């Protein structure tokens, strides 16, 4: 241990790895042991700073780490063995990559001299993961481990964040081979230096354009949340009287209950958000990437708009939609500079034009307004989300899987805070929701954590109910059970004359009994009038995992829905109405 003498401590590669994680401030590692990582797991056993969470499938470890990162802003850490351990982590790594989530994935590897021999549990994890990581590295000498851990965290968390894979051959961690340990304080790479501040001239140009705008809109994405810039965004939007729309990844970046908020945009965005975008004269894109689920047909995208685009990743600028005023930089310092310049700026907003614009927006709000048929006798999924919002006072961490339930959660749980909405936006990974809820609950045990899922998605990682029992993770699972892969069915209804090719699940388990078998509480809701009492009971069971199996209308569709191949503002508004 540390003493007066300045000699660095001697540690094995495995012990260095764990110590480096501790020095990086890592509290939890999610993983699953196996042959190639046994030395590392033994080193883990012999210390108490870094705690290990044993999942039931490596994919869940990656989603736990990912969701922790989404909620906290710090990189999540995964530890898996070589071969199948590593390949099972691939979906989770790709999920994090698509949403720019900082994550460090440590993979065991066969001994160096066996690499390339098709050894037992050998896969080329560097090769497999290369297209879905920000970076990956292999350990060649045990003494490099502290530096490589530092480098992994630095790359994962800086610039546009992303997952980093560190591949460690087993002979790099042999307990008897010890090396002086020192954790680097800083790291500088000559080949990687993300531009942080943004060009002041470009920022000035953007501000001048916004001040002169007659029909502006602020389009804010996940970059605002990753960049911790919600406060700056909110202040600026209010000062400039901008209508604000958030992407699926950006929900919570601007408070949903604020009158200037016009809802999510895109494929299942609000009518008003898509209309505002289409008719805008200035689009102020902040940490958003003009994804195909936002733009609809790019050729018809927002024909009259001057586009200002802030992004830390230059490759995201003018990739699908040309930006007239590009600003490369981290969202937070760029917005701070804008606010600073705004104080000194003599320009004034065109209040008349903005007044007319807001008048028009108000009219659009009345067209659809997020309505759904609440009179139907069948329980509506939208009503469930609204009830969950009420019962959690809008303050829960909400994770979701992928499909209709995800869209209902995004539309009807009105997020007022950033980092509260945790979903797989880019990759669209079914099976994400439950492990994600677990990752959040572990770090925020006092917070309400809700997993909104469906009977299709939940079964993709349902084995994690066992992990929840082991670690006492009292998440609330809202299973919107309609007996169909709802989003697939919706597309089949709309485009394939309701030929339900493999979108119906026969032989569903009794989810209540299943939850009970794992040692949790299960509640079934089949009628609308049972919902309130069930939610009441579930949220009163503070430390318990409660699985609410809620049977909802199987015929329900998600609306609005952009018409494929159309402009932003071309939408289906219900089964019978379209723009």
């Amino acid at each position, binding site marked *: 241990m540390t003493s007066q003498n300045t000699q660095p401590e001697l540690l094995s590669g495995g012990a260095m790895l764990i110590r480096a994680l501790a020095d990086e401030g890592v509290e939890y590692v999610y993983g699953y042991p196996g042959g190639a990582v046994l030395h590392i797991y033994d080193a883990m056993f012999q210390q108490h700073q870094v705690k290990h969470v044993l999942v039931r499938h490596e994919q869940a470890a990656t989603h736990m780490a990912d969701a922790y990162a989404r909620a906290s802003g710090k990189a999540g850490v995964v530890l898996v063995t070589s071969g199948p351990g590593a390949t099972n982590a691939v979906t989770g790594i790709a999920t994090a990559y698509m949403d720019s989530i900082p994550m460090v994935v440590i993979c065991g590897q066969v001994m160096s001299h066996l690499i390339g021999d098709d050894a037992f549990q050998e896969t080329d994890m*560097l*090769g497999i993961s*290369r*297209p879905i990581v*920000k*970076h*990956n590295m*292999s350990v060649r000498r045990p003494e490099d481990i502290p530096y490589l851990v530092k480098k992994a965290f630095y*790359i994962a968390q800086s610039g546009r964040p992303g997952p980093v894979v560190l591949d460690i051959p087993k002979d790099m961690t042999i307990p008897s081979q010890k090396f002086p340990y020192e954790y680097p304080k800083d790291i500088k*790479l*000559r*080949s*990687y230096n993300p531009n942080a501040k943004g060009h002041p001239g470009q920022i000035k140009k953007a501000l001048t354009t916004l001040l002169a705008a007659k029909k502006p809109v602020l389009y804010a994405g996940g970059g605002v949340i990753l960049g911790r810039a919600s406060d700056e965004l909110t202040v600026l939007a209010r000062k400039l009287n901008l209508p604000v729309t958030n992407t699926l990844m950006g929900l919570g970046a601007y408070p949903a209950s604020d009158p200037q908020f016009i809802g999510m945009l895109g494929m299942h965005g609000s009518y008003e958000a898509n209309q505002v975008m289409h008719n805008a004269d200035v689009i102020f894109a902040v940490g958003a990437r003009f994804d195909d689920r936002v733009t609809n047909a790019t050729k018809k995208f927002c024909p009259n708009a001057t586009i200002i685009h802030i992004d830390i*990743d*230059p*490759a995201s600028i*003018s*990739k699908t939609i040309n930006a007239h005023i590009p600003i490369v930089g981290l969202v937070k310092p760029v917005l701070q500079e804008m606010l600073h310049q705004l104080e000194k700026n003599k320009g004034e907003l065109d209040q008349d034009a903005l007044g007319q614009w807001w008048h028009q927006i108000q009219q659009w709000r009345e067209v659809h307004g997020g309505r759904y048929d609440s009179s139907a006798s069948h329980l509506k999924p939208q009503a469930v989300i609204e009830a969950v919002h009420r019962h959690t006072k809008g303050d829960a961490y909400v994770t979701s899987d992928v499909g209709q339930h995800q869209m209902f959660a995004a539309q009807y749980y009105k997020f007022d805070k950033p980092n509260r909405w945790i979903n797989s936006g880019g990759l669209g990974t079914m099976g994400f929701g439950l492990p994600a809820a677990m990752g959040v609950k572990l770090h925020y045990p006092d917070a309400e954590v809700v997993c909104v899922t469906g009977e299709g998605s939940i079964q993709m990682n349902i084995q994690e109910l066992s992990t929840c029992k082991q670690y006492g993770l009292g998440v609330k699972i809202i299973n919107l059970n309609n007996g169909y892969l709802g989003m697939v069915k919706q597309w089949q209804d709309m485009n394939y004359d309701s030929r339900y090719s493999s979108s119906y699940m026969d032989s569903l388990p009794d989810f209540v009994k299943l939850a009970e078998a794992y040692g949790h509480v299960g509640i079934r809701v089949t009628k609308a009038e049972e919902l309130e009492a069930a939610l009441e009971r579930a949220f009163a069971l503070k430390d318990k995992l409660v699985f609410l199996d809620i049977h909802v209308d199987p015929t329900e569709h998600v609306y609005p829905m952009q018409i494929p191949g159309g402009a932003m503002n071309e939408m289906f508004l219900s089964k019978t109405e379209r723009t």
Partner: protein
Amino acid sequence: MRHILSVLLENESGALARVVGLFAQRGYNIDSLTVAATEDPTISRLTLVTRGDDQVIEQITKQLHKLIEVVKLADLSESAHIERELMMVKVKTTAEQREEVKRCADIFRGQIIDITASTYTIQVVGTSDKLEAFIQALNGTQILETVRSGVSGISRGERTLSL
């Protein structure tokens, strides 16, 4: 449009695979690729010939920049530059063809670098167009094998791409 990208890369294992993988994943073309260490053994220079409109080339250079191991890069075709490619051609030569092939090689400032009783191996250096023209000029001669190095390039004047 044809572009020649010159890339300085950390000389680490996997770095080249990352560059090549990027082109494959994102559907960009590679016409040719050459790579070797520079005078600084920790840095490799990679010269890549690709095609695409301005938007595609802009994306390629941005995506290359994003790779952690890419230190610097330049589009040589944006300004005056010199490009060279080396080709070795092995041709079958009958007794009556040998003089004609030798003359043709001289015209292209090629060198005969190996001979047998029935073959010549000729080395030609120049732009890709010149190498194509040489192959055309060998019309009537049986080509047994061609080996091309791919394009290397360097900026004219005082401009450099170095650390």
